[in-house]
């Protein structure tokens, strides 16, 4: 994100080997996740609960699906050296678009899904074009777009609106054994992003642009187009999260995105997963680990009934400590 952070990083290479090693930061987050699961199991056992019971496993997945989907999208823009602060308002907007077009009728579902995805793709395009064409720093560009979307929300809605039909609520509430449909959706999005990053030219270019835009440009990558596509994909992910939340809530809500804190929390999950905020290094696997880490932590907090202020302190400390550990690992390597 900031220029000096990009110094001293290896220029992007093309070999498969490098691409895999780029995902190496994912390892510590899974080690931490395993440790946290063990801790959770202990806490629950001492507290008289069952950590690995179906209720809790399902709960962890339900709680992390929406954030997980947003964070996958956020991973793509961050890898490309950008970031997106507009996702929270966009989620609110798409939840409303979805619920209003459906208006409680099954027949509205395809149109509503298409409209939600189209709206989010459009916002992503705007984000991407402002960042690349107008050369506005992503922080300001997406913050500005977020304000514009907020204005639209404030002007049009004064509370939950629309309603989704029963059939669409299956997305938010059903599960196959211990696997909720929402978690499967998240897994599908994550798998898609993983394939994109590891198996396609576009994925390679995202790493290249985020690693060093100048080098990428000199080696013939159309960097602006890559950044725009990353923004569109990120916004579409936010749109999918909006669909999921509309299905969970049974309606659209103008505050569901901001109340959920999906903007900063998704960025936190991405960097917890070992993706460098400056771009070019990291991957989806780490992000999934980061989101699960936060969800397991939440589950332990719930069991212990930790108050919300203490939760914030613990989250802040974990975030900074994790990043310090990553930075250390990078230097000694």
């Amino acid at each position, binding site marked *: *994100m*900031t*220029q*000096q*952070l*990009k*110094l*001293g990083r290896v220029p992007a290479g093309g070999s498969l080997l490098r691409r895999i090693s780029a995902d190496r930061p994912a390892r510590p987050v899974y080690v931490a996740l395993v440790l946290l699961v063990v801790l959770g199991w202990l806490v629950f056992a001492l507290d008289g609960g069952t950590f690995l019971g179906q209720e809790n496993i399902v709960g962890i997945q339900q709680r992390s699906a929406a954030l997980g989907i947003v964070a996958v999208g956020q991973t793509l823009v961050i890898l490309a*050296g*950008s970031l997106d602060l507009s996702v929270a308002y966009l989620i609110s907007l798409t939840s409303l678009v979805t619920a209003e077009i459906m208006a409680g009728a099954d027949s509205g579902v395809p149109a509503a899904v298409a409209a939600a995805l189209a709206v989010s793709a459009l916002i992503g395009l705007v984000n991407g074009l*402002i*960042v*690349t064409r*107008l*050369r*506005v*720093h992503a*922080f*300001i*560009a997406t*913050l*500005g*777009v*977020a*304000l*514009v979307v*907020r*204005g*639209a929300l*404030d*002007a049009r809605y004064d509370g939950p609106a629309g309603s989704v039909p029963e059939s669409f609520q299956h997305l938010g509430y059903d599960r196959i054994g211990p696997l909720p449909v929402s978690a499967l959706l998240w897994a599908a999005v994550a798998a898609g992003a993983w394939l994109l990053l590891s198996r396609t030219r576009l994925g390679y270019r995202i790493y290249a*642009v*985020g690693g*060093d*835009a*100048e080098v990428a440009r000199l080696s013939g990558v159309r*960097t*602006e187009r890559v*950044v725009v596509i990353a923004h569109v994909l990120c916004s579409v992910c936010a749109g999918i999260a909006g669909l999921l939340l509309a299905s969970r809530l049974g309606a659209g809500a103008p505050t569901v995105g901001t109340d959920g804190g999906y903007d900063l929390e998704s*960025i*936190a999950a991405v*960097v917890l997963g070992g993706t460098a*905020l400056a*771009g070019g290094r990291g991957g989806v696997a780490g992000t999934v680990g980061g989101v699960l880490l936060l969800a397991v932590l939440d589950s332990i907090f719930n069991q212990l009934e930790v*108050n919300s*202020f*203490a*939760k*914030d*302190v613990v*989250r*802040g*400390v974990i*975030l*900074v400590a994790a*990043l*310090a550990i990553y*930075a*250390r690992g*990078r230097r000694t390597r």
Partner: protein
Amino acid sequence: MRRALPIFVVLAGLLVAIAVVNPYFLEPTAFLAFVKRAAPLVILAAGQYFVIVSGEFDLSVGSLVTAEVVIAARLIDGSAEATWPVLALMIAFGLIVGLVNGAVTTLLRVPSFITTLGMLLILSGAVFLWTGGSPRGALSEQFRQLGRGSLGPVPWSVLILVAVAAAAVWATRARFGHTLVAAGDNDRAAALSGVRVARVRTVAFMISGLSAAVAAILLGGFAGVSAQVGKGLEFQAITAVVLGGVVLGGGRGSVAAAMAGAFTLEALFTLLNLYGISGALEPAVQGVIIIAAVALGAVRFPRARAAAAS
């Protein structure tokens, strides 16, 4: 200074626009009231400038302002004698938070976006853990005077603002200011030419923490104890700095322009309010203007491209 010219033109335009709607605005008392209202944000923007020009972010200032006010209320608890020691403590606390932000960013090499995001969470959680969920105690009348009272016709907060502005401009003109800009422009080159990059950046964070402490003193004085006094101030301060033409990523921009950016933002709010653009349209207009200002500013700097587009 020439680079900063556009923001002053915009600011002048907005002030004229306000005066057209409300002629009373140009009278000394009304204008001083405007400056008084803008003072906390201008001071925060001045502090944020040092961090941004050195190539970093400080997202923790909003929750630091809230924490400072809540801490002051609990410690002072309405007592006049406790006022001055607590004021000193608030200043020290701001500096310490800045020191921690700076040390974690430079020594542990955590990106400042994350360091200060973590600090935001920690401060807002810890202060209410300490007070049991909502503010306790009360600020003393003496404390309130700084944000509420005035010396003759001039509010104390305006005087404090003038002092802060003078100190900020002086600091940027001093050797420290030059090394800071050099570090923000290219930290490796700066390090090679003998700049202690980690140290100057840490000092920049401490200045930002100090500015949050001063802003907290003024805001707490102006309106009293509140659990959400600092809410959203970090984004407003960063917006103000960027509006002043300071480039995110560091190395370019002036502190005077950053402060003018804060005045511009405040003037914009005032104008929108005068025109009765309440609630709904306000954020949208604000968003468009911020993007436009930065976009128009960025066109002139081809070198800013790398920072913006990558």
